[in-house]
């Protein structure tokens, strides 16, 4: 019996220290938060799918410079814009090879017809691939690209032309977004010939830094370095995504070196990472905003003065301390400070319960007269890790000025559905930027079109504000656009359709062996340049 115990202990111990099948291989393990829904970013709308597909496997015509939102050439080496800003011509980079795999071996490099194939799949209903695997193209449509792009044409093998229906300043930034990843037309033809069209979105062939190896659903995704990558090839041989939904478990895996990088550690775990000598905490200002929106269609909340009085009651500094543990900055504009056109001149939002109380009395609301519902965010997001806790603090703040708040919440799909219908009075929400363009915040969240789309939860449609953002959308000069966006932020401050709460910091926990990792402020993971130093 004793011998059996010893054998078991040895086996467990030996087995716990697995050696790589090939000691020269370097495998980078990333603990991701969720499973990808699909491996074609055109059909995805969630972060885990973009992290697993568009970043390692594909490229786009333009990309964001690492760690920033600056647009840089990628599959397109250069581009020109016509004077009416409705024609864009892109010159493609040379020597871009598609991956091989799933029986497919490319016979040519990237050409304009691949770009045409990619966009026409999303654009044209009669395209051979348009309806394959449901063909929802949610992101493409929510960015209104189906209305913006009139046609896509190959001018020569290395030149492609986009005709737009109207001038659209964020167009270039949109092309750097995940959904605009370029697919292979030759692979498309190959699958049609083999009667396997639906495999296009599950057996990915791209041009990205890694090639797809295998996916064990909800468990592991494996990639191999693309040695033919047209930019600098990856420094690790293999990349593994270990899908780990629970943040506490992700941290334990990082500690045990079962992962080299973890995403979204829990705020209360940050100190543990900092104190551990074999771990490092990386952080950057997130391109996000957390806010409390007033339903401006509500009979009371449509009054600007009431919104102002309510905004004075909120002790936002206390929320940062209690909920973000100090890891966020107070917001004063609806866009984050790391986004161009941020309005520095906006005054700080005042916290004054006495002033709030007085204003409420002046407006005719005696203590207890005003009864409102406040919806608390049911999901944890970087811009609000605990909606319930924040809701309770807000409820206490409003109570101090005599406003009765009923806290309410639903599961996420119901929350979105009811908010879209405008059933809320006050609602907690937030936004993480997609493309580093101010329109992605101001247009999506506060425009009149946003009310129709359901993304403007304040249901605030202000003519002068809308004019500013619509004008800014039609010109490409960034300085001129800044003027319009600053004016829009001024109107926002005066009208107060929301109380902007915070811009939160984004954190990643990494092993000290990890080199050259930079956090992407837009949230997705770019692991193309990471390496692992040898030694313990």
């Amino acid at each position, binding site marked *: 019996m004793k011998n059996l115990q010893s054998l078991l202990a040895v086996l467990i111990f030996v087995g716990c220290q697995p050696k790589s099948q090939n000691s020269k291989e370097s495998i980078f393990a990333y603990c991701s938060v969720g499973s990808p829904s699909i491996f074609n970013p055109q059909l995805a709308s969630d972060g885990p799918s973009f992290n697993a597909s568009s970043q390692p496997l594909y490229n786009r015509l333009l990309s964001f410079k690492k760690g920033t939102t600056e647009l840089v050439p990628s599959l397109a080496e250069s581009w020109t814009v016509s004077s009416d800003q409705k024609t864009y011509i892109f010159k493609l980079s040379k020597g871009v090879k598609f991956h091989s795999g799933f029986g497919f071996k490319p016979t040519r490099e990237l050409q304009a017809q691949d770009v045409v194939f990619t966009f026409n799949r999303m654009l044209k209903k009669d395209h051979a691939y348009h309806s394959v*695997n449901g063909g929802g193209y949610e992101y493409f449509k929510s960015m209104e690209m189906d209305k913006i792009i009139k046609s896509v044409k190959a001018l020569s093998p290395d030149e492609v032309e986009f005709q737009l229906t109207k001038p659209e300043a964020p167009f270039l930034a949109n092309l750097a977004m995940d959904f605009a990843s370029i697919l292979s037309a030759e692979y498309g033809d190959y699958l049609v010939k083999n009667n396997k069209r639906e495999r296009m979105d599950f057996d990915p062939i791209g041009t990205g830094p890694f090639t797809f190896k295998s996916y064990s659903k909800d468990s592991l995704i494996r990639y191999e370095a693309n040695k033919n990558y047209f930019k600098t090839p990856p420094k690790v041989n293999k990349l593994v995504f270990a899908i780990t939904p629970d943040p506490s478990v992700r941290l334990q895996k990082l500690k045990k070196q079962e992962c080299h990088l973890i995403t979204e550690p829990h705020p209360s775990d940050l100190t543990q990472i900092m104190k551990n000598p074999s771990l490092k905490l990386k952080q950057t200002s997130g391109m996000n905003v957390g806010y409390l929106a007033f339903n401006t269609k509500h009979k009371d909340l449509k009054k600007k003065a009431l919104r102002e009085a309510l905004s004075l009651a909120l002790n936002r500094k206390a929320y940062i301390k209690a909920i973000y543990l100090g890891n966020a900055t107070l917001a004063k504009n609806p866009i984050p400070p790391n986004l161009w056109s941020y309005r520095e001149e906006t005054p700080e939002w005042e916290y004054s319960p006495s002033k709030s109380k007085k204003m409420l009395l002046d407006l005719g609301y005696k203590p207890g007269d005003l009864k409102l519902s406040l919806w608390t965010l049911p999901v944890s997001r970087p811009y609000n890790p605990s909606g319930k806790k924040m809701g309770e603090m807000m409820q206490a703040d409003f109570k101090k000025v005599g406003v009765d708040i009923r806290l309410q919440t639903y599961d996420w799909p119901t929350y979105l559905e009811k908010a879209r219908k405008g059933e809320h009075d006050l609602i907690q929400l937030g936004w993480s930027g997609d493309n580093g363009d101010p329109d992605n915040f101001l247009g999506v969240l506060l425009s009149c079109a946003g009310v129709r789309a359901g993304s403007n939860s304040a249901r605030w449609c202000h003519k002068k504000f809308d004019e500013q953002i619509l004008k800014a959308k039609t010109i490409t000069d960034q300085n001129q656009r800044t003027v319009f966006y600053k004016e829009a932020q001024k109107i926002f401050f005066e009208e107060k359709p929301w109380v902007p709460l915070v811009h939160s910091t984004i954190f990643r926990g990494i092993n000290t062996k990890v080199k050259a990792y930079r956090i992407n402020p837009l949230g997705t993971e770019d692991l193309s340049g990471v390496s692992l130093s040898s030694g313990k």
Partner: protein
Amino acid sequence: MLKFLLKRLLQTLPTLLALMILSFLMIRILPGDPVLSLLGERGATPEAYLEMQKALGLDQSFVSQFLNYSSQLFRGDFGTSIFTKAPVVKEFFTQLPATVELSFLALLLAISFGIPLGLFSAYKKNTFWDPLLSGVSLLGYSMPIFWWALILILFFSVQLGWTPVSGRIHFIYEIPQVTGFYLIDSWWSANPFAAFWSSVQHLILPAFVLGTIPLASIARFTRSAMLESLGQDYIRTAHSKGLGVISVLFKHALRNASIPIVTAIGLMTGALLTGAVLTESIFSWPGLGRWLVQALLARDYPVIQGGILLIAILIVAVNIFVDLLYYKINPTLKSIESEAH
């Protein structure tokens, strides 16, 4: 026997039909829209929204949606996931081996420790052991799984370094997808023994956590069934015949007490196959429970409808198997049947 089997199969048909209708209706009665779930905070113009709704077939009336679903089912098509665009049946069979592997080991642990514990507790009635073991099993029964799993991870994985934190296998081992059971497929990998051992190690903690409550339940069931059995006349007769303790306990008492125990284990198997949501989430175990809950949270209608039905078929199959076992153990069933003849 065959008649018994056929009768049981026929009895399950109304259950499956009722489940099919209920799962279809319930998910649609719940608020929450799959299209909005796909879009998130982003929203879409009403036109784009309608287009997406149409593409998913959700623009049709309840009745026509149900008729489409029924005709699909009769063709053996359980639908396609809204999110992953993969057939529900394919997803089900991808997740099933992980669940079966985990549940089987959890059940094995629960039976191997639960029955002897219950037996011992009953045998040592009115001694210091009985309340002690009953207390331990009550503690196991009321253990909050999430907390219990984290404690075990912290102790065995982080402090002692004996077991891995989560997952099904260490990432350095690449194993081919042959059966989906890692304990089997690992033998096809480049390093079979190490890969097999890694998958065993990854199974230990989740199986122990998942097996905790069934272990405690089996111990309690065994104890009470044994107590009842030990008080019967035939036990007294066996004792007076001069039979040894082991023979009386195992041959006479346990055999007669086994019917309620087997029934309880059968019911537990069904619960283990689908109710491992917490264990699967903490240990990043890609099983059926997590799959179904994710679908529910995202309002992935086809996965919920098809998944519930497929799981129901699985549970029905397990129950029929248990009934057959019951039929084998309980001779009175056979005599009732022959009397009917």
